[in-house]
C-alpha cells in the first residue's frame, strides 16, 4: 500500500493538534485529507465525523474510515496507530513529571492560558464543519435546535445525533 507513509505522517501530525479535543484538529484534517491528499471529499469528511459522534468510545474513531478508504484494513490500522500512538506516549511520559510539578506556579498559568485557546480551536473546527454542514435554513434550524435542547436538558448527546438522522430522513428526502 503506497499510501502507508503518508497516512502515518498525516495522522501523527494531526494527533498532536488535538489539544482540548479531537475537533481542534478538524480544520487541518480537512486541508490534509481532502484538499491535499484527496482521500475523501469534504462532504464525506463531515458525514463520517458526524456519524462518529454516535459511536461509543473515543470520539475521533472516524479516522478509521479515512484510513480504510485510503489503504484498506492496513490503512485503517496504521491510521489508528499514528493518531493515538504519539499522544499516548506523550501522556505516558509526561504524566509522572506533571504530577511532580503540582507546586510549580506556572503549571496553573499553562492550564488557564491553554483553556481559552483550546476552546477557540474547538469553535474554529465547528465553524469549518458548519460551512459544509449548514447549507440552508433547515439545517441551521436543526443545529440551533440541537444546541438549545442540549443546553436546557440533561440528555445523552448521542441520542440527539440519532434524532438528527431521523429528522433528516423525513425532511431532506428528495420528493
Amino acid at each position, binding site marked *: 500500500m503506497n499510501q502507508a507513509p503518508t497516512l502515518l505522517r498525516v495522522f501523527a501530525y494531526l494527533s498532536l493538534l488535538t489539544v482540548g479535543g479531537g475537533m481542534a484538529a478538524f480544520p487541518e484534517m480537512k486541508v490534509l485529507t481532502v484538499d491535499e491528499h484527496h482521500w475523501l471529499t469534504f462532504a464525506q469528511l463531515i458525514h463520517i465525523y458526524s456519524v462518529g459522534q454516535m459511536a*461509543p468510545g473515543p470520539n475521533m474513531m472516524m479516522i478509521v474510515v479515512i484510513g480504510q478508504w485510503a489503504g484498506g484494513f492496513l490503512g485503517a490500522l496504521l491510521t489508528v496507530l499514528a493518531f493515538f500512538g504519539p499522544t499516548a506516549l506523550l501522556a505516558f511520559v509526561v504524566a509522572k513529571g506533571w504530577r511532580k510539578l503540582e507546586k510549580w506556579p506556572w503549571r496553573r498559568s499553562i492550564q488557564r492560558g491553554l483553556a481559552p485557546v483550546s476552546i477557540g480551536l474547538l469553535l474554529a473546527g465547528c465553524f469549518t464543519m458548519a460551512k459544509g454542514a449548514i447549507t440552508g435554513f433547515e439545517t441551521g434550524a436543526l443545529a440551533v435546535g440541537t444546541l438549545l435542547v442540549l443546553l436546557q436538558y440533561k440528555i445523552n448527546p448521542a441520542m440527539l445525533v440519532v434524532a438528527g438522522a431521523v429528522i433528516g430522513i423525513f425532511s431532506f428526502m428528495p420528493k
Partner: protein
Amino acid sequence: MGNAAVGPTSQVPDAAVPIAPASIWEIFLEFLIIGATSFGGVVPYLRGSLVTKRQWIDDKEFVEMLSISQSLPGLNATNMAVLVGEKLRGWLGSVVAIVGICLPGGALMYAVGLFYHLHGDHPWTTAGLKGVAAAAVGLILSTVVGLSKKALSHKFDFAFMAATVLAVNRLHWSVPRALLLVGAVAILFHYPRNSEKDDKDQ
C-alpha cells in the same frame, strides 16, 4: 452493581488504603466495556467504572488525571486510559487500556466505512447524513458553551478564544501556529501572581 460503593463518601479516600488489585486482563476488559458502552461522551462512563464500580482510583485522582488529560494533546478518553493503565499496571496496563477503549468504536466505524461505500449515495442515507451533520454542529457548539462556562473566568479569556477562531478561520493560520502564538500570550497573561487572589485561599 456498586454494592460496596453506594455512598462515595462512605469510605474516606486515603493513600494508605490499598486500591483493589487489577490484573492486566481485568484492565483490558473494563476499558473494552467502557469503549463499547460510552455513547455520548466517555468521561461519565470512565468515572462510573473506575471510581465507583472498580474503585481502582478515587475521585481526587480521577479529577487530577482528567485535568492532565485535558492539558495534553490527545483525546480525554485515550489519555485517561493511558494514565489509569499506567497507575494500575505500568506500561502494559496503558497498552491494554487504550486498545480496549478504542477497539469497539474502531470496529464499528470500520463497518460504517464499508457501509458508506456501498450505500452512501442512497437517498435515505444522504438525507439522514444531512440531518446528522447539522445535529453534530449543534452538539459541538453545546460543548463549546459548556467548556466556556467551566474554564473561562476572565473577560480576556474570551478575547483569546476569539483570537484563536479568527487566526484559524479567517487568517488561515495552521493550528500549531495559532496554538503556540495565542497560547503563549494567554499563558503569559495568566503568569503566576503572588497573591493568587482568585484562587482558593489557604
